[in-house]
């Protein structure tokens, strides 16, 4: 019964969707003769389909679709804007930090221990930042759903 039952279900689905070929109709008929308990199931599913055929998903006002692409375009453009902004900010921050460290090292009045402390803080932040970026890039390379926001 298992294979027949599986096939019968497939044919019922197709019959409900009015997609059965003439050969499949004959096959369905023969299987229904063999398993008459499915006749009622088929008829009821057909009735159900008749009900849902008279209904559809609600459409939004036309204006929603008129401005749809513009909405997508704005998001793409803003995304590019953020990337450029971020690259610029990273360059400026890196340059600023470099200059800061340079000034710090050349400052003879500042205690050596303070210099080491400040350089340690900066070096730590840089290592954490690089590590996070590297992890993100590794995930992007191996993740098939990389286009999905985490």
């Amino acid at each position: 019964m298992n294979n027949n039952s599986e096939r019968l279900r497939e044919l019922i689905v197709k019959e409900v969707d009015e997609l059965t070929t003439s050969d499949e109709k004959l096959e369905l008929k023969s299987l229904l003769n063999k398993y008459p308990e499915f006749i009622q199931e088929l008829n009821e599913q057909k009735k159900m389909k008749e009900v849902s055929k008279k209904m559809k998903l609600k459409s939004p006002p036309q204006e929603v679709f008129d401005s749809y692409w513009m909405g997508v375009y704005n998001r793409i453009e803003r995304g590019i804007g953020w990337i450029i902004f971020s690259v610029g900010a990273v360059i400026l921050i890196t340059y600023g930090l470099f200059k800061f460290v340079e000034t710090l090292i050349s400052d003879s009045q500042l205690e050596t221990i303070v210099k080491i402390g400040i350089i340690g803080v900066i070096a730590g932040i840089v290592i954490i930042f690089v590590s996070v970026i590297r992890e993100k890039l590794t995930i992007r390379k191996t993740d098939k759903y990389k286009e999905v926001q985490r």
Partner: protein
Amino acid sequence: MNDNISEQSLLELSKKGDKEAFGMIVKLYMKRAYFSALALTHSEDDALDLSQEAFVRAYRAIRSFKTGMKFFTWYYRILKNLFLNWKRDRAKFVNDYNEKKENLIELIEDDTHQPEIEYARIELNNILWNEINSLDSQKREIIILKDFQDYSYQEIADMLEIPVGTVMSRLYNARKKLKDRMKVYINE
């Protein structure tokens, strides 16, 4: 869409960063995208937001789109994953995102102008939506994709990344479940 430009050419142009070509792809699929998102989110605002965001993700990842693949099935997978993230994030604030039971299906106009028949149809519409909503998400998704969006079995299989046989058996079970719940009303 311009008849001289095939969808494949538009996708190839989009891969090269042509936003106008991608815009034509968006316009071609925006309604299907919106309704697919609506079926997932059950909210008109969220459907618009999510379907647009999925197009943005699709644009960013367009280079990984394989030539010969159907754009919409690829897009649907992005949308579905985006939806799952959205649902997870939302669950942190709202216990049940399905709380919103706004009826999102409507009657197709017909020639009946008898108030009592019209009233019965509206009632049936509300009952049907409630019953669809009470199905588990897998059954609800397949019912909406097939019975309200009319995708082919193969398209659904590609979108959900499952074999066609599984689509058929899921559809059978979902329809059976829905029909059993609607039995009293459809036999009236």
